[in-house]
């Protein structure tokens, strides 16, 4: 069990009012699972993911990450978790501007004392190759398309070999074709590298790429179901390609 969440609540005080972003949530995720979290805007997806990424703390309830009660960890220990156990992918990519793709990917390794500059460079290059951006290493974010930027961000999330990758609307800013390319990478990560993936989206067709979908509404889990017809992103892309060929022979 890599994630064990019990009776999780997160409340925000807005002046007089209390916003219950997460209201008594419990679920578990086993290592190697690919879980999608669905829900309409404001349902609490980002709040949940921030807590799972240890950037935020719950108001009450328990969160065990890889068997460790996260609430007992010090700030510096949490920084170590961000650095070595967790990888986070944002909707807005959040790359450092005017910093090359390679240096962006190197960033997490800068905070890992085990890496020498040489090893850091090699590891970042290798990771960029895995997301098929070997030829864009020295490009600045402004010289990359949205899909390429998100692939850099994925490489950055992977470079420290995390046990779990969390993505918040990672395809939210991308067209469907580019979204499928990203999903193909995510599926590869899950199937070939055995990474646990938690993928937040509000697009139902994106949810079809994972085996399990947790649906939130108003801070509660309203559905937690397995998907028996998982789509394969590679095939979807191939179909798309042949379709284009038929349209423009």
């Amino acid at each position, binding site marked *: 069990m890599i994630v064990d969440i019990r009776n999780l609540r997160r409340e925000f005080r807005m002046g007089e009012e209390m916003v219950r972003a997460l209201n008594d949530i419990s679920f578990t995720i086993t290592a190697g699972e690919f879980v999608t979290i669905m829900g309409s805007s404001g349902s609490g997806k980002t709040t949940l993911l921030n807590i799972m990424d240890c*950037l935020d703390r719950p108001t009450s309830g328990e969160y065990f990450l890889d068997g460790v009660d996260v609430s007992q960890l010090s*700030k510096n220990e949490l*920084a170590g978790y*961000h*650095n*070595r156990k967790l990888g986070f992918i944002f909707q807005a990519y*959040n790359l450092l501007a005017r910093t090359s793709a390679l240096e962006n990917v190197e960033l*997490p390794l*800068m905070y890992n004392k085990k890496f020498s500059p040489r090893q850091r460079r090699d590891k970042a290059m290798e990771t960029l190759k895995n997301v098929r951006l070997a030829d864009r290493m020295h490009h600045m974010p402004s010289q990359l398309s949205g899909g390429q930027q998100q692939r850099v961000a994925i490489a950055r999330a992977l470079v420290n070999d995390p046990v779990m990758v969390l993505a918040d609307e990672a395809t939210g800013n991308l067209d469907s074709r580019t979204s499928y390319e990203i999903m193909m990478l995510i599926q590869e990560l899950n199937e070939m590298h055995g990474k646990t993936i938690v993928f937040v989206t509000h697009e139902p067709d994106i949810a079809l790429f994972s085996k399990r979908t947790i649906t939130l509404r108003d801070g509660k889990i309203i559905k937690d179901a397995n998907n028996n017809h998982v789509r394969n992103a590679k095939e979807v892309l191939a179909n798309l390609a042949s379709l284009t060929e038929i349209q423009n022979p």
Partner: protein
Amino acid sequence: MKIVNLLRIALRAIRRNKMRSFLTMLGIIIGVGAVIAMIAIGQGSKQSIQSQITAMGSNMITIRPNSNIQGGARMDAGNVQTLSEPDVTALRNNAASISALSPLVSARGQAINGPDNWTSSLQGVSSDYLSIRSWPLKEGVVFTDQDVKAATKVCLVGQTVASNLFPNGDDPVGKTIRFKNIPFRIIGLLDKKGENAFGQDQDDIILTPFTTVQKRISATIYYQAIFASAINDQSTSNAVDEIQQILRTSHRLQKGMDDDFTVRTQAELISTFTSTSQILTVLLAVIAGISLVVGGIGIMNIMYVSVTERTKEIGLRMSVGARGVDILMQFLIEAIVISITGGLIGVVLGIAATRGVSLFLHWPTLITQSSVVLSFMVCFITGVFFGYYPALKASRLDPIEALHYE
């Protein structure tokens, strides 16, 4: 995070905002440049005064008559007449710490050589005078004790007198000039001594046996001063004590009566002047120090702007594993790099400015190692001090809020 990585990040951030970083450094550059130039000027003038005074003869002791209350009337110092022949004899016989003695009797007047004339000071001294003043001869010989006894009309001339009385460059030694219509044969030419600490031309002088001035010009038995030389540096204060005792006895001063003479040493002169120039140096350094503080505030200001501007970056760094202390160090090192780079440029500029001052204004300057080290350390401290609060602010940001900052 390793310090090398932090340095790399700091340098990258500075390079990315070249103009702004430079303007931020400007305060520090001017501050450090000013500190170094100001201290160099202060130290330079101190050193040149010191060396001038030492050049007068470091063991030199000067005894001058002092206005003493005599019959209730305080007399003008220039007219006081208390030093005379018996004093010199008493000192010569009884003062163990003194190696040389010379009275001084001077007269101003016009010296004439044919068509050329020059108003100068004729100073009557003993044959020891030049050794007391550590003043070598350039040419010729010094008059002897025999000349003193006989009040011979011989003289030594300073360079200024020589060049004014012999404008066509003739060798003055062996020539005869007239001073107040009395012929003096020049037997020696003094070495160039330059200006003294008060800006007077020391080469505008004619030296002759003091007896000659007393008998042939001034008709006086009194001296304007007595110069003495202590046997070495350490015995100067002993010599002063001895002189005081001997002269009090020779002047028959009762206990409780004030001295009717003043004894001064070079050391006292040096310390008077150095303390004045010390005050000057401190004053200049304070002014320069203030500009350093202003520079530091500039750094603080820019670092606050920089932290706010890079809030999102800070959030991102935290989300990939930066600890609070990593963020703190990142901004602190950036501030220190800015201040130290500014300091380096400031040092170069300060040295250049100092060179310029000596070259174009001909002021004496002295760049001391300590002023460079000091201003460098001040830079480092400025960076730490003024960089700390912005860096602390950065390190305490909440990662989620920081990530959503626009």
